[in-house]
């Protein structure tokens, strides 16, 4: 009842990447990749901690992670890392007012200057870099 009274979209609205263009999709992907990378960081810290338990323990851990499934996860992590970094730099610069356009007299059809081609290009470049890095990473991991 409380949720209906406030009429907030809730998590469903926040995690919906559609309806508002590529910038909203980039926001959604930035959040998703951030959470994914945090989960990987915790796993990676745990995984590398087995080195202090000796060679056998380390090799046992490698047996778990150096599998096709492990490699697929690593390829996804590579993609998330590159996208999060590249898009993060775009967002950081945007937060400082760089690349968001200049104020002026709005003219019909009132296209927002902040949603300009530079921002869209950076988002697509981030996605492309991530895809390229994933392919390169997959080549190394599965090619070995």
């Amino acid at each position, binding site marked *: 009842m409380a949720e209906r009274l406030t009429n907030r979209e809730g998590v469903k609205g926040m995690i919906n990447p559609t*309806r508002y263009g590529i910038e909203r999709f980039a926001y959604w992907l930035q959040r998703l990749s951030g959470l994914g990378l945090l989960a990987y960081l915790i796993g990676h810290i745990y995984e590398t901690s087995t080195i202090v338990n000796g060679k056998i323990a380390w090799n046992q851990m490698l047996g778990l992670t150096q599998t096709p499934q492990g490699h697929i996860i690593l390829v996804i992590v590579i993609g998330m890392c590159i996208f999060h970094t590249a898009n993060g730099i775009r967002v950081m610069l945007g937060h400082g007012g760089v690349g968001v356009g200049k104020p002026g007299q709005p003219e019909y059809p009132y296209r927002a200057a902040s949603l300009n081609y530079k921002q869209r290009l950076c988002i697509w470049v981030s996605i492309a870099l991530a895809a390229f890095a994933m392919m390169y990473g997959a080549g190394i991991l599965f090619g070995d």
Partner: protein
Amino acid sequence: MAVVSQKASDTITASSTSSNSVILRISRSNLSNDHSTTLAEFKVPIQKWTTVLEAILYVKQNLDHSIAIRYSCRQASCGSCGMKINGKPALACYTKISELNSNIITVEPMNNFPIIRDLVVDFKQLFSTHKKMKPYVVRNDSELVPGTKEFLQTPREAEEYLQFSYCIKCGLCNSACPTMATDSSFIGPQGLAQAYRYVADSRDEGKKDRLKIVDQSHGIWRCHFAGSCSHVCPKGVDPAMAIQLLRGYLLGFRK
């Protein structure tokens, strides 16, 4: 969860003389009666230039007088008729049925605003947040003192904040914002854009106060430049630009 009333008796048909018509689904809710939200369906005749507002008023006039809707100027000046049209916040008077490219038009109250009834939502939080931004020129002196009877401003200086002054407080930006979807304490794109409107005004001396107001955990830092606010703004205010320019002051990119 909205329920579409599919019964034949609920689907009220309009005049049979029109050659073009659409199905208009209007969200109905009356919280004082504790009814659940339903979608009432109406067949409405349209022409090439019919707006969503005209379609709703046609229904109100001819088919169901009880529909609650807020509207006034019919020309995207007052900001009263903001609602969710086919899933996206828009002004009903500014949205032509023909540009929606659909035979079924669903109108619902704007998200992130409490519902009063049907399509009418409560703007209390938007107005109170707007007031917290000190939406007036803050100055220690008065324009009567310098003897010019006004604070002089060049056209270039006026352009720095002009587009942000075009805000009609329609609330569409707050409805589209992904942070507003979950964060009830967030200032919102409308408030932050208006804070910048006055900070950018060369006549204003309240920059420090306003920066302090927005520099809080549910303030400017909960904006992540998703840009949805600027995507839906009907007046070209571009709140996303205003927020990033305002943040530039806090990050040291601007002095």
